[in-house]
């Protein structure tokens, strides 16, 4: 039971850190919460059975890092459009080409 909790906790904690680093940081909360629950349960089990808690501490540390990073990104990072200079130029050129192409078009109602 303790081993299973540690394995699940470690996998979800690593996953949450990876997600927190990526732009998908909002999705990091789900594995982070699972990792925190598994980590805490494994911690109490280890305490009761008087077994080493190093891996459990690592799970909790990774979870805290993932949660802190994901929370920071969701609060502080605003969604802004990147560099659109080339797109604007394409837009302008496209309109000029279209006007030339449609020069002889006579619209009918």
């Amino acid at each position, binding site marked *: 039971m303790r081993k299973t909790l540690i394995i699940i906790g470690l996998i979800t904690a690593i996953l949450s850190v990876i997600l927190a680093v*990526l*732009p*998908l*940081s*909002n*999705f990091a*909360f*789900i594995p982070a919460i699972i990792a925190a629950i598994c980590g805490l349960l494994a911690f109490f089990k280890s305490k009761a059975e008087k077994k080493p808690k190093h891996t459990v501490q690592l799970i909790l540390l990774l979870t805290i890092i993932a949660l802190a990073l994901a929370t920071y990104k969701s609060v502080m*990072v605003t*969604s*802004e*459009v*990147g*560099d*659109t200079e*080339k*797109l604007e130029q*394409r*837009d302008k050129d*496209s*309109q000029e080409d*279209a*006007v030339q*192409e*449609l*020069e*002889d*078009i*006579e*619209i*009918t*109602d």
Partner: protein
Amino acid sequence: MKNFLTFLLFNISLIITAQNNAFQAGEKLTFTAGYNMSGLMTDFAEVTMETSEVRTKKSALLRLKCKATTYSKWDNFFKIRDLYESYVNPKTLTPYLYKRDINEGGHYKYVKYNFNHKSKTVKSLIRKKSKNFKSGFWDRNETVKIKNNTKDIVTTIYHLRSLDINKAYLGDSDTFTVLFDNIETKFTFTYIAKETINTAIGKKECYKLRIDLTNDNTLKGNSNFLWLTADENKIPVYAKFKVAVGSGELKIKSATGLKN
């Protein structure tokens, strides 16, 4: 029989009264595109829909333009810079020229349709990047036969707004033929409910429409919906699309230059 008559009347009323009273040149709608998985939403792009007047020597046309741009945080992972445009008759919204210039994560594609409504054909050009050609591009020119009311995707969205949905009954539907990648695809819009939803431009009463694609698997199942404001402008304020995993959403951010 009763349903058939209602459907027929709805379609006839749409054909007779389809006058563009919903938008004008100078309108700009800005949306946020996001991906929703298990209730967690992440925004990834900004979509704008703009209209402007374009003058040629002989006529004045309406330019309908849609742009999609990923947010800077996504640019390093999957950069999107898409431009869709259509040049239409301002009164009847008949398309004359359609262009699609997409750049998605390194994938480039350019599509151009010159509509000839007399001969019911479309002169199509599809351009892709290719190392096999000196120019670096591979061009495919084709002439495609189209049906009477076939339009491009951009014009269809705006055409939908010009319809008198207020005269339609719940359950009424209308089908539009859209030419996409040289294939005529049928889009069916069904009016399923009238709902009031909260949007960035206020609390709006909306027509909820279900979108069905008859011969395409891009949108999955019957879970694709579009909310148009139940006023003269019929602004598309919210759209929800079921994709392979999770769902995509389009939420309005701002609307300027509205006609009404």
